[in-house]
C-alpha cells in the first residue's frame, strides 16, 4: 500500500500542484483547507507525511503544528512546511518548530518530490492494466448491453480515469460481439464542462468502435444537456429500462 499524504493549504491551486506532483507515485492524497481541518484529518487519517502551508485563515500552519506536537499520536508525523516567505527570521522560526523540511514558494512539483524522497521513499505507480474491480467501478454487463455508469460529479481526473478504462473495455466488447452501450448519467448532480467533455469523449470513442450508445439521465439533466451545443442533439432516456427497450 502506498503512502498517505495530507496537504493542508487554503489555496486550491497549491493543493492541486501538490496532488499533481505526487500523481506518478503510489500515494493517496488527503486535502485540508486550514489548520482546523488539517488537525482533524491528521487525527482521522494518520498520514505518513503532511505538507503544511503557514499562512491560512481559521488556523495557520504554525498553530496546527504546535497542536500536533501536543498529541502523542501526531507529534512524530513528518511535516514539510510551505511558505511564501524566505526571510531569515521566518526560516529560523520554521526550523525551530520541529519540521522535517520547508519549501519556499514559488516551487516546482519536482522540487517538492526531491524534498520528500529525502525523508521517505516514494514508489512509482505500476503501469498495469486496470484491475477487474477497478474497471467494474463504471462498467457492468447486462445481457448483450454494456452499462457505463458515471459518478455524481465529474472532475478532470474522472475523464482520464473513464477514458483509460473505456478503451480496453471497447476492445473487450468488440471481441465479445457486444455492440450496445447505455451511458447512465442518472447519478449526476452537477453539470459542468468536464461532464460535457466526458460525454463527448465516450460518444466519440464508441462511434469509432462501432458501438451504439443510448444515454440515460434525469429530466432536469436532460434539459440542461439540451442547452449545450455539444450535447443538444443527444436523445435522452429517463430510465435504463426505457433505453433497453429503445435498443
Amino acid at each position, binding site marked *: 500500500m502506498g503512502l498517505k499524504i495530507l496537504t493542508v493549504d*487554503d*489555496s*486550491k*491551486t*497549491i493543493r*492541486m*500542484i501538490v496532488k*499533481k506532483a505526487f500523481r506518478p507515485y503510489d500515494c493517496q492524497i488527503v486535502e485540508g483547507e486550514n489548520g482546523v481541518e488539517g488537525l482533524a484529518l491528521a487525527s482521522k487519517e494518520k498520514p505518513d507525511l503532511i505538507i503544511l502551508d503557514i*499562512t*491560512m*485563515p481559521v488556523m495557520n500552519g504554525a498553530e496546527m503544528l504546535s497542536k500536533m506536537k501536543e498529541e502523542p499520536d501526531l507529534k512524530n508525523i513528518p511535516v514539510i512546511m510551505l*511558505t*511564501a*516567505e*524566505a*526571510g*531569515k*527570521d*521566518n526560516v529560523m522560526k520554521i526550523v525551530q518548530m520541529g519540521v522535517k523540511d520547508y519549501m519556499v*514558494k*514559488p*516551487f*516546482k512539483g519536482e522540487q517538492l518530490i526531491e524534498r520528500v524522497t529525502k525523508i521517505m521513499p516514494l514508489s512509482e505507480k505500476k503501469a498495469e492494466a486496470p484491475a477487474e474491480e477497478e474497471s467494474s467501478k463504471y462498467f457492468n454487463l447486462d445481457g448483450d448491453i454494456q452499462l457505463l455508469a458515471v459518478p455524481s460529479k465529474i472532475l*478532470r481526473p474522472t475523464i482520464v480515469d473513464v477514458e483509460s478504462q473505456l478503451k480496453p473495455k471497447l476492445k473487450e466488447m468488440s471481441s465479445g460481439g457486444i455492440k450496445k452501450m447505455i451511458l447512465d448519467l442518472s447519478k449526476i448532480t452537477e453539470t*459542468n*464542462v*468536464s461532464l460535457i*467533455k466526458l460525454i463527448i469523449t465516450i460518444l466519440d470513442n464508441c462511434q469509432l468502435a462501432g458501438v451504439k450508445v443510448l444515454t440515460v439521465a434525469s429530466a432536469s439533466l436532460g434539459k440542461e444537456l439540451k442547452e449545450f451545443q455539444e450535447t443538444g442533439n443527444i436523445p435522452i432516456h429517463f430510465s435504463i429500462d426505457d433505453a433497453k427497450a429503445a435498443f
Partner: protein
Amino acid sequence: MELATFDLPIFLRGATREVFDTMLSMELNEQDTLSLADGSRIVGSVSLAGSVSGTVNIHVSDTFAAQITANMLGMEIDEIESDEEVHDVIGELSNMIGGDLKSRLCDAGFICELSIPSITSGRDFNIESKGWAVKESVCFQYQDHIALIEAFIKNGG
C-alpha cells in the same frame, strides 16, 4: 536602514520574474510604459503590516488571468471550471510576490506580517493609492498580454 533606501524596484522585478518563470514557465519582458488594455481585469492584492505597512497589487486582464491559471494548473484554458480557480491562482501569485517582498523587508529589519490575498475584479476601475513613502509600478509583457505589478510601502503606525 532607512525605508527610502530599500531597493523596492529590484526586489519587485526579481520576485515577479521568478514567480512567473518557476510557477508558469513564462518569461516576462519589461515594458517601458505603464499601460493595461481596456476591458475586464483581475487584481490580486496582499497587504503588509508591522513596522512597515504596504500593499502589493497584480493587475492582469481576464484573458491573461485565464492563461496564467491554465499554466499554473497544467491544463488548457477551456478546462478551467470556474472563476474561483482563476481568482485562487491570481491570489496565490500575489501571495508569492508579496511573500518575497515581505522576506526582504524583514531581512532589512522592517518586521511585518503578510495578509491572506484578496481579489478585485471588474472593468473600468482605477486603484489609487496615496501617502506611501516608497512605491514602484512595473509592466511586464508576455506574448500579447500585459501584467501590471505595483508595490507601495511606508513606515508602520
